[in-house]
């Protein structure tokens, strides 16, 4: 029994590790085929991500939005809602955070910064709230609504940085400088790493605790596992789901505020979300929807983001190789997840408890015809 438990706990770790090694191997193969030195490329990738204080700080700071968005995905997916609106929620959060950061510059930092961060959270929550209410009241599919809300948010930002928020010279599509009192202080001096990093880490553990140990977490889990049974059991599944979507947006909004109030940024530009809203989903996928596992998963993707630049500059490997690597990680990790599921399924079959139509049905339709 003991040994079984150890194997059960270890096997996902080992399988994921195997998938990563395979990813590295294939990526090096691709680099070799493209006519570059794979070992030098890997060195460059490593140096770019961990070669020095600045590099490490850059990598860590890139983890922040990745982790927060991944958490957002996890919370929504607990209720089995598929939100792909994190880009839009990041932008909405960023807009409100920037607005607070540009105004009220007479406030002291202890008030101004929390206010700006809170504005970001509220912005993301509101943007997700639109999709949540549409879902609850009108049964609008959240995948579609969140996707379309992304497009709206992008255009609003485009207008803002060329209109009301534009810097005073009026030449560049970006906002004026955000007041220093609304910016996160540096965690390591003269690096992009600021105090929002520990906040993001704390959020990871906070969400983990909420999901695992609170009555809300239980409601959410049961709702996602079987909505009808949850309703029969007295859980208000609709409001639980709405809350989950709103919290998920709030997390993305927090990520948006971090992108503007922390790190190296001084102002809002039109593409500040930098695809974090989608990459974060992949991080959650890699973490197999476990909050804590988001930390290493985000580290991996931050590494690729941060180190990829040097790989291109020093060895001349096109940056598309980095994207190939990202794709490989997803494919192989998803594939290995399938491997783990299969093992689980055999064990279930063995118990021969209840018919589970989906698998059986699929097999039979394929094979009986």
């Amino acid at each position: 029994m003991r040994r079984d438990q150890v194997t059960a706990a270890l096997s996902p770790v080992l399988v994921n590790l195997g998938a990563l090694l395979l990813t590295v191997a294939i990526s090096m193969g691709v680099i070799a085929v493209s006519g570059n030195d794979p070992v030098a490329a890997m060195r460059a990738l490593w140096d770019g991500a961990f070669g020095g204080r600045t590099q490490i700080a850059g990598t860590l700071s890139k983890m922040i939005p990745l982790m927060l968005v991944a958490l957002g995905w996890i919370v929504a997916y607990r209720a089995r809602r598929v939100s792909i609106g994190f880009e839009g929620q990041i932008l909405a959060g960023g807009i409100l955070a920037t607005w607070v950061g540009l105004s009220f510059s007479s406030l002291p930092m202890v008030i101004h910064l929390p206010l700006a961060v809170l504005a970001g959270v509220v912005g993301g929550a509101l943007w997700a709230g639109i999709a949540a209410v549409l879902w609850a009241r009108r049964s609008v599919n959240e995948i579609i609504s969140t996707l379309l809300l992304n497009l709206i948010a992008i255009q609003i930002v485009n207008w803002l940085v060329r209109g009301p928020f534009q810097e005073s010279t009026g030449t560049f599509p970006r906002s004026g400088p955000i007041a220093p009192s609304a910016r996160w202080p540096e965690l390591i001096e003269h690096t992009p790493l600021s105090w929002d990093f520990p906040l993001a880490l704390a959020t990871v553990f906070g969400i983990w605790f909420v999901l695992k140990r609170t009555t809300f977490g239980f409601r959410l889990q049961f709702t996602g596992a079987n909505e009808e049974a949850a309703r029969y059991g007295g859980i208000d599944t609709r409001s639980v789901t709405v809350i989950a979507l709103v919290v998920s947006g709030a997390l993305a909004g927090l990520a948006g505020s971090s992108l503007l109030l922390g790190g190296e940024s001084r102002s809002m530009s039109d593409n500040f979300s930098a695809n974090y809203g989608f990459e974060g989903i992949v991080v959650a996928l890699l973490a197999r929807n476990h909050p804590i596992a988001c930390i290493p998963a985000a580290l991996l993707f931050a590494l690729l983001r941060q180190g990829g630049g040097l790989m291109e500059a020093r060895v001349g490997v096109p940056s598309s190789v980095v994207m190939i690597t990202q794709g490989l990680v997803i494919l192989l990790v998803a594939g290995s997840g399938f491997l783990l599921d299969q093992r689980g399924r055999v064990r279930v079959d063995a118990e021969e408890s209840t018919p589970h139509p989906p698998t059986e049905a699929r097999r039979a339709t394929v094979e009986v015809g």
Partner: protein
Amino acid sequence: MAPLLQMTGITKRFPGVVACRDVSFAVEAGEIHGLLGENGAGKSTLVKILYGLVDPDEGRIEIDGREVRIRSPRHALALGVGMVHQHFMLVPTMTVAENVALGLRSDRPPLSRLRRVAAKVAELSQRYGFHIDPDQQVGELSVGLQQRVEILKLLCRGAELLVLDEPTAVLTPQEWQQLRGTMRSLADAGKAIVFISHKLDEQLSISDRCTVLRDGSVMGTVATAETDKASLARMMVGRDVVLRTERPPRAPGRPVLEVHGLHLNAAEDRCLLADISFTIAQGEIVGIAGVDGNGQRELVEVLMGIRTATTGTIRHEGETVTRLTPRRYNRIGAVIPEDRHRMAIALGLSVRENLVLKDFCRQPFSHRGITRPRVFRDFCASLLQEFDIRTPSLDVAMRQLSGGNQQKVVLAREMHRDPGLLIAAQPTRGLDVGAIEFVYRRLLEHRERGGATLLVSTELDEILSLADRIAVLVSGRFVALLENRDIDIQELGLLMGGASEMVAS
């Protein structure tokens, strides 16, 4: 002459369990052979082996005296073994002929030979008295007729041995009678049928011989003409089973639930429930009899606040509770929903999580929104003991439990704190006799303690042996509300059945 199918010494092990242990049985052509056993006794593994879905570890399979290794369902069909699954594999928007033709190799590819298939279907339907029109859409057919289409599919593929996996689970009593006729005419035409069911009456009424499985081993094969219900039950469960219940007389207590003039209309003024009135007193079981789909589900959902009645009042212990929510209902009563997998449990969650669904937000299970896993654990452990739930641990997924144990989890969750009011909808659906006995005992104990019970069931026997009063629900109306004293089962059946024809027309 060799039997049509001979399985010898079949053993299949899965990690931690032996699903089949040295199983041998034989089926002759023209025979209806029953396969009987509790959930988890090894019936489905055996059938999966026969159908090429699972490879046995040991043993041999002979068909017509030749040893075979069945590699896939397609291969099984080629060998003349066909299977009707509990869940049909039909495309509702296609016609009968099209469904039969799906996956059938045309004799002149790439042209499909739909007319030829249709003619074949018509001919087979004629020969066995199926009354099926090949050009009708499958989605328009009743469940019983869809089942015949499944059988037709197999016959068109030349199956000589038909495996029917729990075919009666989805049928009304009338449809079961018709299926019996179908099975008999197939057997008379020389087909062999393996009939899987854990219902003893069904086995006794149709099977020629019956093989009983328990814990993966064959307990014996008996000719059904030479056995009876009690001895079959004993073979299957391993001890004597008492389903005849004793209902000691009781003095009716205060009314717990009073329902008056309940109406429920669907969107287009279609009436789902009409003028439902009844009361349930302390220590009383009121049974709702009726064929499935006559408003049972709607009634339960109104009573527990999932739907709101159009008009009418519901009073609980004198207090009007017409505008309930499921949450409020769960404070005053408990419910065993009719469809376990859909409404009662989450198959993917652990036994523990399923057990605490009704309690997790109360003290001492949680405090200020924070749950206490240790309290959960102790509480669940005591429930496992009290309700005799067989599970490897509290952490295994609900999916891994047998149907009977899943139902015990529901029972434990709902009944552990003596609810004053219990709604039990089809509480024994899909359970084997051992588990049914357990449920009956629990329901009667609840009655003994003065609890009020609303028992909704399509099984007349169940209603007659448990209920104090019986209401017959037809098309959303009570056509009768009777004391359960000297009730003529024929009459009750007529009330239900005659009305079910009205529904059909």
